[in-house]
């Protein structure tokens, strides 16, 4: 195994040359994205550097409590972020928070219980970040689809309720489609991994000098872990959030119906 390359701020600064290319393209094509590119570069630098210090602190302390607190913070921030993408779903924050917490806890506990990883912070922190991040994206897509479909299909839902269906029965086809839309992107990327693109973990390990087959094995574990976690987060978020569209008397709330009298 070769040694991981030494990366200093000089090398990071050199990489800004490619950002300059993006800015030049924006200017040339009058895309007016120069400011956005500048903000993205500045934010990524500040945010990742800050996270780097936090992670370094957590690694040095080697306290499981700190790891749990860090991952819980990610889940809260993730739920806030995903809530904005699921704006058409009333009260989406709590279903998202429960979904991310459950997905993160179940996945990490299972991996530790099966002996795949130890409870050392250097494993749990990056794994937790990946689980929460991917779970957030999947749950947000699923809830966004749920909200759009309920709003667009309110006549069909009410017609079904009028036939004596419960709220759960009336929304079941929409729930099914929403769950599929949350999980399918990761399934598709898992299908094409190694053929169309190299996933991040594997790239990181190869750059750090790991043997290719070792990198592949770890990447496979990560992919399978993420499939499980996005399934858990999508199904939890959708099942909890769908209730918010209905009253206990199986009525579609006003939020999903138009104002026609």
């Amino acid at each position, binding site marked *: 195994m070769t040694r991981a390359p030494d990366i200093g701020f000089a090398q990071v600064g050199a990489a800004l040359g490619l950002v300059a290319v993006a800015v030049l393209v924006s200017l040339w094509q009058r895309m007016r994205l120069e400011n956005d590119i500048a903000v993205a570069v500045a934010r990524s630098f500040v945010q990742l550097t800050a996270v780097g210090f936090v992670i370094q602190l957590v690694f040095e302390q080697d306290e499981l409590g700190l790891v749990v607190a860090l991952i819980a913070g990610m889940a809260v921030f993730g739920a806030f972020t995903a809530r904005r993408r699921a704006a058409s779903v009333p009260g989406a924050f709590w279903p998202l928070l429960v979904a991310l917490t459950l997905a993160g806890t179940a996945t990490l506990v299972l991996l530790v219980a099966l002996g795949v990883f130890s409870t050392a912070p250097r494993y749990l922190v990056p794994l937790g970040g990946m689980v929460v991040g991917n779970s957030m994206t999947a749950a947000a897509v699923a809830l966004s689809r749920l909200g759009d479909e309920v709003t667009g299909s309110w*006549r*069909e839902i*009410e*017609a*079904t*309720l*009028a*036939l*004596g*269906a*419960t709220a759960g*029965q009336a929304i079941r*086809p929409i729930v099914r489609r929403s769950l599929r839309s949350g999980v399918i992107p990761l399934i598709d990327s898992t299908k094409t991994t190694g053929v169309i693109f190299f996933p991040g973990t594997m790239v990181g390990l190869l750059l750090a000098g790991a043997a290719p087959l070792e990198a592949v094995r770890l990447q496979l574990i990560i992919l399978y872990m993420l499939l499980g976690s996005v399934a858990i987060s999508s199904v939890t978020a959708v099942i909890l959030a769908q209730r918010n569209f209905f*009253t206990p*008397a*199986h*009525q*579609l709330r*006003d939020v999903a*119906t*138009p*104002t*026609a*009298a």
Partner: protein
Amino acid sequence: MGSAAATGGATAGPSMLFELKRVRASRGGVEVLHDVSLALPEGATCVAGRSGSGKSTLLRLLNRLAEPDSGRVAYRGRGLDSLDVLALRREVALVPQLPALLPGAVADNVRFGPGLVGRDVDVGALLDLAGLPAAFADRDADRLSTGEQQRVMLARALALEPRVLLLDEPTSALDERTRDHVEETLKELRLRLRLSLVLVTHDFAQAERLAERVVRLEDGRATSPGLDPEPTSASRPSTVR
């Protein structure tokens, strides 16, 4: 045209289907029914009013698809909130405005409601009741004309074996000829199955043709003068048969 709508102070007798007392209801945060008191007896009653007058909201209150902000809605003398809401919706079946068919075959739509309580139905017979050939059972619900969809929705509601049919603008999307056919079907159903009908329409002539009593709604207020047994022409035997 006569009016049999009851306003304020009417009491529910044995033949009273629905009673609304000082009902206020909103849709989209806007109050659309203002202090409405009505009594709707068994038989065929039409709620007539212009678009936006609160007709559809009133109809949705009757099988508890919507909840009043205040006031009381009763069915056969009992407050709706004291009844099993799912059983109520099977007994008081709503035929909504188009489009509201479920994806799949016509037969799937007709069987849906009874299937929820583990009951099977004779799809062909129900389609026949609604004025469609039994061969329509296998048709794709997405490929029906508007008039055919309307009849499938009628068959789907009849599959519940309801005692009351709530009809929300049942012919608004139909041409004159199809409208006449649907109206004839409704009259026949009323006689053959002894169903009570509560029909919402903006078409006052249709109210005259189909209903024995008419409730007029204007800007969310019932403007009918009170309980009045004077029949519309539709309640006279010659027009029903």
